[in-house]
């Protein structure tokens, strides 16, 4: 690097660092973060901007396209996460900058475009785990600006994917706190993939009567025990944990199946298939005791599906 360029870069970094404490992002103010974390992030972002500007450009272009994309969108949300998958961890600084330090054009977006954009970029923070991002997710989980259900859901999920003790404590605490955000936290809690999450979700599922919310809870339990997650995460050290989380999830889901009807029961059946615990058949047999004829038929059908699924493949 030529000396003039180096000076320019240093100046830019200093300028950026000095302004970070006052900066305002799309969901957080820089001051919401502990100073040490803030400085680490600011430096990380500054370096990344110099070394690898492409993810920043993509984020900015995508943000500016959001109004048009939202106008022609199909379904609930404009897809955003996929735009960062190619860059993997390289995308994280650009996203953190937007969330914490520089809100960009986010305030000009309509509510649903804003939700799509923010949920999309936050989800990236869970897909490509980096310890530097975790403080941001902790702050987001407490932020008053994070209140829309889907946003709370992806923040919880992204923090869950970090699977640290701090993440677990914070998520369980948030899940116990009554209020409008509680349900979003519960819906994302399964992505923590722990027995503690499954146990908390079991309580929530037992108390929930709304069909749509029961489905979210069931899918959260499914996420915790998802065999696809565990297959990739598997190491010799957490084999026991995998077994216990999937077992707990399966048991909660069988209970959910028994206590549900219609599409909620079908969602529980699908979730049981996803968890795919070896003890499932025994649990389904046991559940047939004292079951009504209709429930018994449903259990037998699920048993048959589990034994011989048309699409789900068994792999180690």
């Amino acid at each position, binding site marked *: 690097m030529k000396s003039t360029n180096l000076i320019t870069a240093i100046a830019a970094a200093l300028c950026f660092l000095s302004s970070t404490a006052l900066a305002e992002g799309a969901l957080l103010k820089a001051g919401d973060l502990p100073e040490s974390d803030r400085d680490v992030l600011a430096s990380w972002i500054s370096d990344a901007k110099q070394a690898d500007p*492409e993810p920043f450009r*993509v*984020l900015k272009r*995508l*943000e500016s*396209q959001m109004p048009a*994309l939202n106008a*022609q969108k*199909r*379904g*609930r*949300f*404009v*897809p*955003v*996460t*996929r*735009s960062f*998958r*190619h*860059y*993997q961890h390289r995308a994280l600084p650009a996203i953190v900058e937007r969330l914490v330090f520089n809100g960009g054009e986010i305030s000009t977006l309509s509510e649903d475009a804003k*939700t799509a954009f923010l*949920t*999309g970029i936050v*989800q990236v923070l*869970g897909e490509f785990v980096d310890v530097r991002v975790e403080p941001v997710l902790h702050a987001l989980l407490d932020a008053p600006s994070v209140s829309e259900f*889907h946003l709370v*859901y*992806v923040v919880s*999920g992204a923090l869950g*994917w970090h699977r640290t003790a701090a993440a677990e404590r914070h998520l369980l605490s948030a899940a116990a706190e009554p209020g409008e955000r509680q349900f979003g936290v519960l*819906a994302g809690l399964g992505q923590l993939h722990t027995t503690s999450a499954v146990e908390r979700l079991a309580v929530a599922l037992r108390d929930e009567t709304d*069909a*749509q919310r029961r*489905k979210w809870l069931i*899918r959260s339990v*499914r*996420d915790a025990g*998802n*065999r*696809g*997650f565990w*297959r*990739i*995460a598997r190491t010799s050290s957490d084999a026991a944990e995998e077994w216990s989380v999937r077992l707990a999830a399966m048991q909660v889901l069988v209970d959910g199946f028994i206590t549900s009807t*219609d*599409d909620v029961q*079908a*969602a529980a059946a*699908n*979730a049981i*298939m*996803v968890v*795919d615990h070896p003890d499932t058949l025994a649990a389904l047999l046991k559940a047939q005791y004292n079951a009504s004829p209709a429930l018994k038929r449903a259990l037998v059908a699920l048993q048959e*599906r589990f034994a011989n*699924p048309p*699409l*789900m*493949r068994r792999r180690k």
Partner: protein
Amino acid sequence: MRITTTQWWRAVSVLAFLLILGCHSPTLTSSLEFSDATDATDAADASDGSDGADTTSEADAADGASITDGADALDVADGADQADAADGVDATITNASVDLIVDNNRNGVLDLDDPSEDAYENVWNKANGAVFLANIDDDQDTCTEGNKSDYELAECHDAADDEVNGLEDLLDMAPMRIRAWPGAPDDATATLVVEGTGANYVRIFLQEYQNNDLTYEALPQKHSISVEQIREGVNLRIEAKDIVRDADIWDGYITVRLEVRGQSESYGTDSVVLRVSPVMTYHHLLDTEVAYAVAFNFASSLAFIGDLTAALNASSVNAPLYQVGYGDQWAQDYFETGYMSMPGPKGAQHAIRVNFRSANVDNPNNPNNPLRNAGRVVFDLRGPDSAAVQQFDLTHPGQMDSLDSFGNTETIPPYSFKGIDYPLGRSYRGSVPSFYPDESFATMMESQLQQPPVYVDTSWLIVGHVDETATFFPTEQFERGWTVGLNDPQLAWEMLEEQQQAGNGSARLFVGKEWSGGANAEISINAIVNSQQLSAELESSTAEVEGQYLVIKQATGFVDDDLVHIPYLHEKQSGYSVALQPGTANGILLDSQNFAPPEPHGPTIGGADIFKVQLEEELAPHGISVRWTEDWDLYHRLLGEVHCGTNATRQIPDYKWWESGR
């Protein structure tokens, strides 16, 4: 009411017959009431002998009149008005002189001398009963769009006025005739009444001669007919003013009752039951007649239209691609094609095509135009024998609006299962109690009765349409004549894992493609199969697709071995699922040999796209060629595929809906 012993037995026989047939009989009460009249008019039967010859001549005269010259417009077969004598049931309880004739035997003409035209005319079932149409097309193309509101546009059609709008309009109306009774007493007058709720939904026209011209007068709901008209006979036409919207309000059946009275007595009555045609959607065993898409003058659209046109040229579709003139590329979503039909001459069906406008409410606060604008294409397509229907509920929750798009309305092809025939197939939609499309529209679809719906859960999908995960292919391989093409994420994963194990893990998918924001979309096999998120979504999406398939399986008796496996993976966005790779189940089937799915975009191994090779090989045994269609930028990137960007009007099936018994 006095009923003789013989009449009792006959009535009981009729009842038993009806029960055996399981037929619809809204006029059962009426048919028993006829007994009164029968008694009163028994004597008149004997003097009825001259009836036949008179009506032959007058029927001929009417048939050959100027407006219908050379056409089968009146559909009255020459012959004597003496059918009642051979009438299996009605002759015993109605008077032969008081006879209202409809196309009860469904051969497309009024057979005045055919007993089957009268037999069981007061019941409607799979064997007999007249049919008429909702005359809501626009035969003279008078419904211009202009600046009309959504509501005004829907109100314009041929049945909106009291006029017969030309010969083509006349052909859309079913014929009826009051048989001539030359010997009618001087004090006789007749009343023609449409009984029950159906009266509000139909209009009857009376044909008259005025100055050597045929004219048609719309009758009030209860109309008096003079003795002169009774003696000469009267030609009538009937139309429905609307399709059935809610079977609980009107089920499409009507009873038309004719009574001839003197000053102090009834000379007789006759009642007939007719049914308005339901609207049916097309299934994939029917070849495409017209394909639709939206064209833009930029590269991605030109590529899409170019490939689609090439696919059409390779198929049996003769009509050029119809380019929808709205800037909304999701041509599948805002209209659904269908038809209604009634018997026509020589065993044909006289059909009106029907295009449903989607119930997508884009502007709930706009008092004039709340609906998705591009749905107006149904009014562009409205014309001779082409109708438009819209039905929506402004209060339907907006977060479920995507389910009202017609990518969420497909049709399972015909089949029989557990002793029940579905000769026109079944509607296939995403709908569960917690996530459902517009209920008023669903009620309308269900009220057609011909294609009882199969509902699956699409709430896990970000778009939420049934066409994202399944399609149906015609095949001669299986007795049922079709198979299910099903998204199989696990197969996609296995194919990628296999390549990884073969040392091709660095091979890339989506080479040269971009996501929104100009983001590089390329991704290696390794990046996919090592991803915890994609692996988790693999399991979740597979289980959900499997759940949908099990509903199809339970409804149809489909067997797993017959599946066409269509591999592509899903990804998660904001808590919902969507195809990561182009969803190759989401293509348009042009005819029995040509399927146009999206280009899968790799990975290419050894010079071949492994996903192309798989699908071509999978469909080859069914005689189907794959016509790859580029849709990445305009559709896949925006959560849709080829099927979402196209639409099709298909051939009307040979099967006649009225024979279904539904």
